């Protein structure tokens, strides 16, 4: 029996009848997931479909076959508790904690079952270390800089970090409930606000899911415009991150130049959509704004200038020996950790994983125009910075091509109401990594549940592991090189 036989299979951005998803007893559900994961499938999502937050509920798993470009779905019969997947499949650890917190379904044998979002830092258990020479450092949730709130607890021996525990949840706004309960005309604005710097990617995932549920597809011109704003968002953030990394190591000239270039791309989004973060650009069925001839010339000019500037500033930054010595061998994440935790995006590609939704599960314009996947092997801060630099260059080339060869036609088409009793999955490669929206409609076409998985949800644990055995003074630099979202994690 093939390991996929217990699953329904769809492609990214497709919907299926909910009744087509096989419902199996929990033991079979568990063993089927483990078998599929052993065959190099990645756990994209694990959720509980309960609406009322009380057990019993049934579990739903989405596993991604990144080579075959397919998504496999299976559901379990309703349960109140089940043997935890985490001891055998580390990728499930945070999903299971989330399920327990949200629905009360207990994963028996979970090694560290504590709340994900609804816990104040002083009310939950933390790992601790005893001894004369060890000490504990607690940072946050209020920080010295203007950043989001999160609580970090280090167990240290002198400067060396033995363990770092990250407690988030301070940004929990109930985004999934707002998306589920509506009103429908507000959903897009909520999706764009899940994570402010990934507004376009979340909006795209939301729109793709809506369109899949309604069974419509946007015009080619709309797909191209969506890809354009997504890549501009990626550029603004990747270049901004390079500037921030440079700032953290005290290399100020590169900070200033990267910072200015980031402004160019935010301004480009402003030109296209009227918002510096691209909010309001996408809408179900297409995009809200088209590119005029004047805008295209202006954008092409900026792109050509930026290709040159990026090469120069990047050369200055990566050509400076003191910068390289600071970045190399700092905060290393091994390939094994990457695969065990199911990391996504820049962090995964910096460890050598060939993982990019634009390549593995192509959607929109990426089905026709391919973008090379950038990979590095060392998994350290240098690799994460370099992946950003190289991806920014690839995005600029892609962008120039896409703006130059914009398909003719209308930029928007009507989007019908969602069909009843269907489930859709939409994956989008945001600048941080895989953004995943999954929703199921009920009998009247309104959402039964709506699940959002931001790339940060997969990756936070990797930051904690990257610090093990490292130095506590390297934490800010490591943190910046991951640059994960608190809001995206907390929803």
């Amino acid at each position, binding site marked *: 029996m093939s390991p996929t036989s217990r699953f329904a299979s769809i492609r990214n951005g497709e919907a299926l009848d909910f009744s087509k998803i096989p419902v199996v007893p929990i033991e079979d559900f568990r063993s089927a997931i483990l078998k599929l994961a052993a065959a190099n499938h990645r756990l994209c999502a694990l959720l509980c479909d309960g609406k009322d937050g009380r057990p019993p509920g049934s579990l739903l798993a989405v596993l991604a076959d990144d080579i075959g470009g397919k998504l496999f779905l299976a559901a379990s019969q309703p349960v109140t508790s089940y043997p935890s997947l985490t001891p055998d499949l580390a990728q499930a650890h945070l999903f299971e904690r989330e399920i327990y917190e949200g629905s009360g379904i207990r994963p028996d044998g979970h090694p560290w079952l504590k709340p994900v979002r609804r816990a104040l830092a002083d009310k939950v258990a933390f790992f601790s270390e005893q001894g004369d020479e060890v000490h504990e*450092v607690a940072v946050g949730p209020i920080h010295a800089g203007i950043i989001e709130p999160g609580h970090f607890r280090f167990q240290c021996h002198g400067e060396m970090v033995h363990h770092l525990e990250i407690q988030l949840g301070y940004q929990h706004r109930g985004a999934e409930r707002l998306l589920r309960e509506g009103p429908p005309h507000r959903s897009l604005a909520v999706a764009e606000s899940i994570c402010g710097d990934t507004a376009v990617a979340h909006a795209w995932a939301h729109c793709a899911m809506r369109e899949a549920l309604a069974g419509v597809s946007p015009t080619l011109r709309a797909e191209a415009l969506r890809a354009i704003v997504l890549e501009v968002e990626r550029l603004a953030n990747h270049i901004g991150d390079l500037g921030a990394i*440079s700032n*953290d190591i*005290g290399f100020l000239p590169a900070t200033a*130049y990267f910072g200015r270039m980031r402004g160019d791309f935010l301004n480009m989004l402003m030109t296209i959509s009227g918002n510096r973060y691209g909010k309001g650009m996408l809408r179900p069925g297409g995009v809200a704004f088209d590119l005029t001839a004047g805008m295209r010339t202006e954008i092409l000019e900026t792109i050509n200038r930026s290709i040159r500037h990026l090469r120069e500033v990047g050369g200055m930054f990566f050509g400076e020996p003191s910068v390289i*010595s*600071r970045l190399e061998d700092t905060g290393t994440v091994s390939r094994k950790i990457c695969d065990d935790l199911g990391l996504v995006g820049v962090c995964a590609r910096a460890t050598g994983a060939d993982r990019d939704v634009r390549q593995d599960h192509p959607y929109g314009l990426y089905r026709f125009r391919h973008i090379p996947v950038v990979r590095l092997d060392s998994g350290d801060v240098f690799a994460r910075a370099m992946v950003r630099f190289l991806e920014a260059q690839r995005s600029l080339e892609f962008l120039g091509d896409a703006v130059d060869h914009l398909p003719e036609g209308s930029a928007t088409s009507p989007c019908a109401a969602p069909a009843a009793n269907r489930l859709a999955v939409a994956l989008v490669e945001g600048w941080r990594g895989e953004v995943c929206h999954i929703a199921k409609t009920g009998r009247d076409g309104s959402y039964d549940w709506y699940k959002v998985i931001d790339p940060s949800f997969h990756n936070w644990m990797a930051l904690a592991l990257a610090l093990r055995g490292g130095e506590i003074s*390297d934490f800010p630099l490591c943190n910046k090189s991951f640059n994960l979202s608190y809001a995206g994690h907390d929803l």
Partner: protein
Amino acid sequence: MTRVSSYLLLVVFAPPLMLGIITKTKAAVAGRKGPPVLQPLYDTIKLLGKGAVYSTTTTWMFRLGPVISLSAALAAAALVPLGGAPLVAFNGDAILFAYLFALGRFVTVTAALDTGSSFEGMGASREVAFSSLAEPALILAFSSLAHRAGALSLAAMFAPHGGPSAAASTILALGSLFIVLLAENSRIPVDDPNTHLELTMIHEVMVLDHGGPDLAFILHGAGLKLVLMASLLVRLILPDKTFLGPLGTLAFGLAAAAVVIGLVESSMARLRLVRVPQLLVAAICASVFGLILALR
């Protein structure tokens, strides 16, 4: 009388100006305008006008820190030949100078430990670890200069001299003192005075809990330390008699030193914390070789 007035002029205005010039240089290299040169002075005035908040866990040690560290710097300034003869000079004042710096550091560290904060404890531990390497470099560099001058007084040791008599030992002492200057004054590549990241700070994290006039004292004292170290180096490099006069020469030298520090900070990233001792050991080695050459 002129000595007293030039002393007062320098200890009040030189620290903020020098910091302002460093910031301006860094801004210029990064293609920015940067804050006004006098911004550190405005900040000090602003802080002096504010009240201070004291944590209930702190004791008198915490309040004593800023006062003593500024006084120590002011006392050290009296020993340094700032454009002419120093206010106070005697054989052995170089040792007192080094110990006044150490005293300032001791009270800053104890004030930091007094807060009981884990950050400040970390900063204090780093400060002490690094200064235990910076101090030997300073003392050894002083020794070779004292041996050459035949006196243990700053005025004699740092008498301006150039030409062939500027022995290799002096050049090595100069290099070593420059590294000590960067380390003592928490400049890049040792520390980053502008960072907001508590976990990476050395000096800044120790003063996180100070505010208002206390912070003004600390900032001014730190600036004064920079001025004193820099003016010693300037005395070593520049001739005594120029058309600018002694005070003008010093002012020019300090401004040039500020620009050099700004350029060093702009041209490299900060060192990883574990690498800082290596740099300081290099400074010690330079001092030792200088001393060997001087004794030869």
